[in-house]
């Protein structure tokens, strides 16, 4: 029993250290890479470190930039729906930014994955919300029907809940206040919110529990870390992610998205990190993952070891754009994840 407790504590500590490191590296990851002197570029504004900018995307939908990952917000008559909450350290600033869009109650939070970088604000932000009551709240004769205390409902695919919580007797990865309380285990969950159909789809990719959210009236898809325009994808093998699942998932996004004239704009896509995107950006990202997958697959076929595969630099042309040599998700770790997944 004691050994099990020690093991659980050690696991939690490792997870905490890893998550802190991952959050801390966001600022560095956003920092522009050193450009050679000849590669002139005019000054382009960016969000100030530690601050959050609010971008109106389309219709009811907004994108919060600066918390680490992008956070999607739908605001309207029914209240506020958020997709992901960012790291815990940014919760108060995220809430303040949401309040510049709407003072209405936060009704729903949707977690696109379980990583702390994306869901770290669940505790604080859910507690600041209020789920939609089933009955008139002022009717003192009966309960208003809400399942728990007054907080926003947290929706996720069921495996996200499994990884945040733990079986009885084991220490959970996250406090109970962070856990999703409205999970789904089917391919699709639907909401009608702020006069808009909202489709929550299970699209495994970087984990086995990714969700994407399509706002059908605004025609905006929030895809979480299936698309990270600042980095090679963080494929979490331990959480069931794989390059093949990611490529299939990106194709699902491409199948839903319809570009406008000249093959751009139209359906807008909010990536996990990086700029607001559209279909071509996702197509290029899918291209990158597929090319690296095929090269690593070829290396495995030719009998190359992992170290030889890394030395062969199968992602060479994408390194300047997405690669990192320091931090928790380096180019080497990405190649290793692809290699290990294909070697299975």
């Amino acid at each position, binding site marked *: 029993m004691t050994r099990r407790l020690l093991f659980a504590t050690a696991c939690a500590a490792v997870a905490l250290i890893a998550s802190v490191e991952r959050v801390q590296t966001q600022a560095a990851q956003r920092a522009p890479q050193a450009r050679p002197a000849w*590669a002139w570029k005019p000054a382009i504004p960016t969000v100030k470190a530690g601050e959050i900018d609010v971008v109106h995307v389309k219709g009811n939908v907004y994108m919060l930039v600066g918390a680490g990952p992008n956070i999607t917000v739908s605001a309207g008559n029914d209240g506020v729906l958020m997709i992901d909450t960012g790291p815990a350290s940014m919760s108060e600033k995220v809430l303040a930014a949401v309040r510049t869009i709407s003072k209405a109650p936060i009704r729903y939070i949707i977690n696109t994955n379980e990583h702390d970088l994306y869901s770290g604000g669940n505790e604080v932000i859910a507690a600041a919300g209020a789920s939609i009551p089933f009955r008139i709240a002022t009717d003192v004769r009966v309960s208003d029907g809400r399942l728990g205390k007054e907080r926003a409902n947290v929706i996720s695919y069921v495996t996200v809940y499994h990884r945040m919580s733990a079986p009885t007797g084991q220490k959970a990865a996250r406090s109970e206040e962070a856990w999703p309380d409205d999970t789904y285990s089917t391919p699709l969950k639907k909401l009608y919110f702020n006069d808009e159909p909202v489709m929550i789809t299970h699209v495994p990719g970087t984990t086995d529990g990714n969700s994407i959210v399509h706002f059908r009236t605004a025609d905006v898809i929030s895809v979480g870390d299936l698309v990270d325009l600042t980095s090679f994808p963080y494929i979490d093998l331990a959480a069931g992610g794989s390059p093949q699942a990611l490529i299939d998932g990106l194709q699902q996004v491409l199948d839903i998205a319809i570009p406008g004239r000249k093959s751009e704009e139209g359906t807008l896509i909010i990536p996990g990190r990086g700029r607001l995107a559209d279909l071509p950006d996702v197509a290029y990202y899918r291209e990158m993952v597929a090319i690296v997958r095929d090269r690593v697959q070829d290396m495995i076929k030719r009998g190359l070891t992992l170290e030889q595969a890394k030395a062969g630099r199968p992602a060479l042309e994408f390194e*300047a754009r997405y690669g990192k040599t320091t931090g928790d998700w380096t180019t080497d770790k990405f190649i290793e994840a692809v290699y290990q997944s294909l070697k299975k």
Partner: protein
Amino acid sequence: MFHNARVPLLVLLLALASQPAWAQRDLTGMWRPLARNEDGSGLDGDYAGLPLNPAGRMRAQSWAPENFDVPEWVCRPHAFDFSVEAGAATMRLSAIVDDPTQKLIALHGRLSMREQETTIYMDGRPRPPDYVRHSWSGFSAGEWEGTTLVVTATHLKEDYIRRWGPMRSDDATVRIRFKRFSPEYLRATVIIYDPVYMAEPYIRTSLIWLHDPDVLMPPYPCEEATETVIERGTVPHYLPGKNLLPAQDPKVVDQFGTPYDARLGGAETMYPEYIKKLGPFPRPTNAAAGGAERGQ
């Protein structure tokens, strides 16, 4: 008599004074491209004259022609700078003017080949933040350097600079210098600053347009083809060392006998001094299959 002569003079002076400043360097109108100079061997897959760095070369060498049949790319337009350089597109430049003040807000550009449009802001507005959507034409701002209009585009999507693989990245800055050096002729110089795929800036003054009010601007409707030879979800590309384009075959010769090494591109292949280095390189001997040699 003297009094009468001053009236038309005054009218003329007033007319001149009321012209907006940009009218002195007006680039608006219809422009017909004149024949351009061809570069390199003309073989598909030739990167001679392009300052590719190793990453840019690898990106180019992985490109397979089937890429154009990927459903998501069927309607991908040429980038504006690509068509400016390519020399086969009709161009229309028109002014967007603030009506009450008659101040020039922007120039709107449209090119006919796989249609592309751009808006060149002339009103000094700031560039948008780095988190806004990138587009095929990016955000362009123009300013005058003497009588040359210098257009600087950022916020670009990745796109091809040749239709056989070489790309510029979404981190590139593109400058186009437009100079009208007579009532009839307009010249464009394209400069690409791309730290991701290039080793040096790529500079090309390649095109002259003739002012031609009668030239037509055809429409370019496009819809996604759902029955292309490429199955949805497929990403065609060549593995390293497996490129099948003729210029990437060391044995294939073009009409000039260009050595294979030159066809790999790189900064030094841009400069005239490189011609002297070509001497010792082995000359390929096998003729390319029919249709492999063509422009752009």
